[in-house]
Every structure is written in C-alpha cells, then in structure tokens.
C-alpha cells in the first residue's frame, strides 16, 4: 500500500465513520464534535488533491467559523428537554430507505460508468495553488465574487434581524 492510498483510506474512513456518528448521536454537542472531525478529514483529502488554499479555508472558515457558530448556538438553547425525547421522526423508516435507494442508484451509475473517466492524468495543477485560485477569482469570477459578498451582507443582516429580541 503506497502512502497515497494509505492516507486516502485513513481520511475517508475517518470522514465516513464520524459522519455516521454525527447523524446518530443523541447529544448535539457530540454530533458537532463528530462533524468537526469529518470536516478536518475532508481538509486532509483536499490537501492530498493539491488544493492547499482550500485546505486552509476549510480549517479556518468551516471548522473555525461555522462550527464555532453551531456550538455557540447549541450553548444558547436548552438541550435537556430534547435529549430525553425520541430522536428520529415518524417517517424515519420510509425516509431512510428512500435515501439508501437514492445512494444505491448513484452508486450503480458510478459503477456502470467506470473507466469513462481518465486515470489522474499527468495534467498537474499549477504549483502555486493560492496564486492560481486568486487569479481565477479576481479575473474570470469577478462578478460571482461580488455577488457572494452581497449574499454574505444580506445573510449578516438577516441573522441579526432573526436573532434580535425586538425588531
């Protein structure tokens, strides 16, 4: 087993295992910690795919920003009541089966289309990953970038209005 394959197996097993744990935990704080583990494992996969900038963004923004927000809100709401109740809803069996069927369908599509994709070619990405991403972001994707900033502004205003006691 080459180091590449070992790292991929390690990170993907970690990601899938903690995702399963996240979905099944009764305590939301444990779920949040397992989701953080999944996101960190995904960051490792990004690093393996030569996406260094996304690796850093994933850790700083996802784990350091969004997940802290989640944990902060979990601390603000009262956990004790909901923890003692049933954790899954009435349509859980139907919904779970349908989700598994959806997954099986996509899996089958991937299996049937195997070999269509070329093996990771020697098309190497630019070694200056951050520079290449910044270049694409500020030239070709200038308009989407500005729209994303407006989206963030709107979301910020929306979050403040939602969380305020009296509007």
């Amino acid at each position, binding site marked *: 087993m080459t180091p590449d394959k070992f790292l991929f197996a390690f990170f993907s097993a970690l990601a899938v295992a903690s995702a399963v744990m996240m979905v099944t935990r009764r305590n939301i704080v444990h779920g949040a910690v397992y989701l953080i583990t999944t996101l960190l494992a995904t960051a490792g996969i990004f690093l393996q795919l030569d996406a260094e900038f996304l690796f850093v963004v994933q850790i700083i923004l996802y784990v350091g920003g969004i997940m802290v927000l989640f944990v902060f809100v979990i601390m603000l709401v009262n956990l004790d009541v909901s923890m003692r109740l049933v954790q899954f*809803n009435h349509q859980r069996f139907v919904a779970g089966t349908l989700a598994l069927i959806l997954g099986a369908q996509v899996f089958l599509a991937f299996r049937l289309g195997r070999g269509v994709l070329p093996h990771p070619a020697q098309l190497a990405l630019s070694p200056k990953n951050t520079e290449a991403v910044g270049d694409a972001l500020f030239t070709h994707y200038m308009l989407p970038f500005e729209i994303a900033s407006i989206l963030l502004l709107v979301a910020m205003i929306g979050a403040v209005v939602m969380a305020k006691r009296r509007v």
Partner: protein
Amino acid sequence: MPPAMISPEHYLMLSLALFTIGVIGVLTRRNVIIILMSIELILNAVNINLVAFSRLWGDVNGQVFAIFIITDAAAEAAVGLGIILAFFRNRETLLADEMDLLKW
C-alpha cells in the same frame, strides 16, 4: 510533484457515502440543529467532488466553485441558526415536527 495514484472513482464514492449519510440525517432526525449540520455535510460532499475533478483536469475552476459553496454554507448557517434562536425563544423546542405555526 508525483502524479496522484487514486482514481477519481474513489473520490466519487467517498463523496456519495457522505452525501447519503447527510440525506439520511436530514430526512430522519427531529432535531433542527442536527438537520442543519447534515446539510453542511452534504455541501461538504459536493466540495470533495469539485476538488477531485479540479485535480483530474488540472484546472483550478473547481476549487473556485468550492470556495463559493463554502461561502453559501456560511450564509446558510448564519441565517438558519438565527431562525433557530428566534424559534427557540418562542416555542422552547428544537424539534422539527413541532414547527407547525403556519398549519392550522
């Protein structure tokens, strides 16, 4: 830089596994915060696909799209958690099937 040894199908399968777990979480859990976290998991699975294909074609565009998706996830989490806080102040519950203010 040594060429990557793992085929894109492996990344697709990993992404599919995370996506399916996220869908199961959204559809079967009652707790709204877990549902929001499952949505984050789904977005994360999409990002793996985008970055894997970006690596496959040697093109940085997929990573730019992944950055936009992370931006969307941040916006969605902020607004969603604000709604959860407001809802919790009104109803003292976090369960999705008790959110029936618009039903009669």
